[in-house]
């Protein structure tokens, strides 16, 4: 059965060691067996990875997979394939589904769907309140102890209005060893808003979402985290003011972490001037000053994590009047490229530091050891790996995405940094940037001759993968 994989000639990027020289990596039985020079292949499938970096598979703390309930946008099948294609070995999916992920049955259902698909770990975040209604707490203890091992609880998409409930949620989460993930937004200031408030919203005649809406939310939840001692993770920070608040909270020693999305550090509000609904998301694209602050926050470590906030929508939900179009953009399949192009190549972060925000940092925040998962490339550790070429140039083409959705703001953009192979639990799930079907899906792994050549693979694998509609 498993004759193994030999990844040849890749530069290993792992932590705390950093980026090393070219070595071979032998994987079998789901585990990295050996790392060294000149390892003989034996019967293993040989993957030529010269010029590439092999890193721990990426981990996305913030994904919307839309299952259950909104499978027409995305589901665990299409979303986990998109994740694998983007080099992710684990994605945490948000509970704003229908029904909401607010109990262990739904959490286990989503988790098991991920296991069935077998392209990456699908780890649900739970809702803070039942039905995401902001009224009564969801059973965090039970969800934490179920098969899905839910660790993060989030009100993503509809912020908890009631501060008293947030306080109690934090207290309860602390006892249960859970982390509250805050979608920080003071709704009374942002209601009806379509984009960042300022000159551009005024110019375009669109209702604005002021930065203060986010900052008041951030400040409230930091206050409550300080009071309760809860562990708090702030989702999709987008303003300079929010970042200042987080920086000060960290200086005071609070147990707080935060994330930023690639779209918030690479796109600004001025780009909306053509009413492109693929630039509509919440929080909205902010000003260039905010971007500058986010870049500083990334480099000084205030921002712990880069997360996608992958938010798939059906075409008809985006091809609409701007104020009727849904919020959100997809990001799993462009994340690495934006990190390389916008952060590494521009000198904001070293490759090591950038990748750590997509691997070891989220693994630590979510305490992923509990799933036997470790974000590392080391002998004896489970083989969840991404092989990427940081220099490869490609052009974003939404029609080639494995996500069911096409709502990317980056269509046509030339980027650098391409995922070539993804290894999940020792199996090659993406080869030569094409998804391949594992034995579980009824299609045998390709033979060594097919997989070892780095060239655009046939369209067959893609067709077999089922593109969705």
């Amino acid at each position, binding site marked *: 059965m498993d004759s193994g994989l030999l990844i040849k000639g890749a530069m290993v990027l792992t932590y705390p060691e950093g980026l090393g020289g070219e070595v071979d990596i032998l994987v079998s039985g789901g585990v990295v067996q050996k790392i060294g020079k000149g390892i003989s292949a034996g019967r293993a499938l040989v993957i030529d990875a010269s010029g590439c970096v092999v890193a721990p598979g990426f981990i996305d703390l913030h994904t919307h997979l839309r299952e259950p309930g909104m499978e027409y946008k995305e589901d665990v099948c299409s979303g986990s394939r998109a994740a694998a294609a983007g080099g992710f070995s684990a994605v945490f999916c948000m509970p704003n589904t229908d029904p909401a992920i607010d109990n262990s049955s739904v959490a286990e259902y989503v988790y098991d769907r991920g296991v069935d698909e077998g392209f990456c770990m699908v780890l649900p975040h739970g809702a803070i309140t039942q039905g995401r209604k902001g009224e009564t707490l969801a059973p965090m203890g039970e969800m934490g102890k179920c098969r899905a091992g839910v660790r993060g609880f989030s009100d993503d998409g509809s912020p908890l209005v009631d501060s008293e409930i947030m306080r109690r949620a934090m207290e309860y989460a602390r006892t249960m060893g859970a982390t509250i993930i805050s979608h920080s937004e003071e709704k009374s200031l942002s209601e009806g808003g379509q984009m960042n408030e300022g000159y551009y919203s005024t110019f375009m*005649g669109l209702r604005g979402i002021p930065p203060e809406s986010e900052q008041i939310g951030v400040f409230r939840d930091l206050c409550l985290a300080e009071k309760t001692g809860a562990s708090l993770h702030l989702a999709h920070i987008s303003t300079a003011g929010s970042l200042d608040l987080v920086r000060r909270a960290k200086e005071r020693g609070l147990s707080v972490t935060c994330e930023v999305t690639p779209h918030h550090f690479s796109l600004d509000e001025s780009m909306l001037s053509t009413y492109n609904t693929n630039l509509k998301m919440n929080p909205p694209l902010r000003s260039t000053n905010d971007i500058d602050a986010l870049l500083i926050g990334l480099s000084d470590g205030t921002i712990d994590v880069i997360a996608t906030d992958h938010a798939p929508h059906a075409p008809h939900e985006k091809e609409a009047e701007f104020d009727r179009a849904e919020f959100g953009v997809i990001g799993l399949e462009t994340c690495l490229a934006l990190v390389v192009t916008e952060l590494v190549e521009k000198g904001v972060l070293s490759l090591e530091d950038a990748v750590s925000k997509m691997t070891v940092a989220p693994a630590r925040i979510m305490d992923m050891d509990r799933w036997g998962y470790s974000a590392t490339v080391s002998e004896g550790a489970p083989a969840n790996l991404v092989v990427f070429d940081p220099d490869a140039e490609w052009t974003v083409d939404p029609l080639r995405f494995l996500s069911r959705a096409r709502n990317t703001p980056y269509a046509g953009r030339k980027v650098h940094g391409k995922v070539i192979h993804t290894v999940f639990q020792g199996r090659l799930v993406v080869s030569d940037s094409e998804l391949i079907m594992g034995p579980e899906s009824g299609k045998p792994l390709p033979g060594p001759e097919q997989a070892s050549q780095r060239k655009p693979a046939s369209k067959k694998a893609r067709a077999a993968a089922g593109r969705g509609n």
Partner: protein
Amino acid sequence: MITETNGHRHLLSITDLEKEDILSLLDSARSFAEVATRPVKKVPALRGQTIVNLFLEPSTRTRMSFELAAKRLSADVINFSTGTSSLSKGESLKDTAKTIVAMGMDAVVIRHKSAGAPHMLTKWVDCSVVNAGDGMHEHPTQALLDLYAMREWLGRLEGLKVAIVGDIDHSRVARSNIHALVKVGAEVLLVAPRSLLPEGIEEMGASTTGSLDEALEWCDVLYLLRIQLERVEESRFPSLREYTLQYGLTQTRWSRLKRKPLVMHPGPMNRGVEIASDVADEVESVITGQVAAGVAVRMAVLYEVLGGSYG
């Protein structure tokens, strides 16, 4: 120049026009205005062309004005409004647009409550698009007719001091007028409490003040916007009474003025709120003049986008 995509010309926003484009449209409007004085109020400029008025937000005067403009140019006109349309059955704007264009339209005149709807329409239709008001964004033909009226009454635009009073935040008329006036070299002063001024409006080239009395002493043109009661519920100002006291053109304010500015209003007026009834009657000729200018200006715009000819 007027925006052009797929070989079709559009008027989506004043910001797409240069000063020369604005002035040439006004000149063209002046020659079209003459048509209204003829016994047969029609020229064959757009004969054989079909224009649809896609009015997805209630409007009487703008729709009538566009309809009349198109008919005076001998175009065929179809009216498509909310209530009578399948949009009330949940059809998307995209599908409605496709349907309309499949019927062989040459131009769509669109009024929509969503900002940017005319821009989106240009992606979906294969014909010209004219913005007849989109959300809080723009109402370019209104600004053009306002400039037309100012030039007719005062003989110039450059250096003109124009005060725009009222709910600037929600006003597409204000936005289009600011852009147009700044382009032709007029000075614009926005008069409103800060709660009715949107963020960054000064960056469009206008100054702001909270004092109507200060503006009255300064301006050549006093442009009053319609104030809506629902802004009270949004806490934009305390009450209509308070608004009138602070920002209404009351009889007291009007009679105190030694040098009377030209008073304009896009209509419909709230008599007794932004303008006292007596004052409204006194300045009525300009305001009705704006309406007449509207037809001529829209003839010029339709003629420009459809590239019609007298041949």
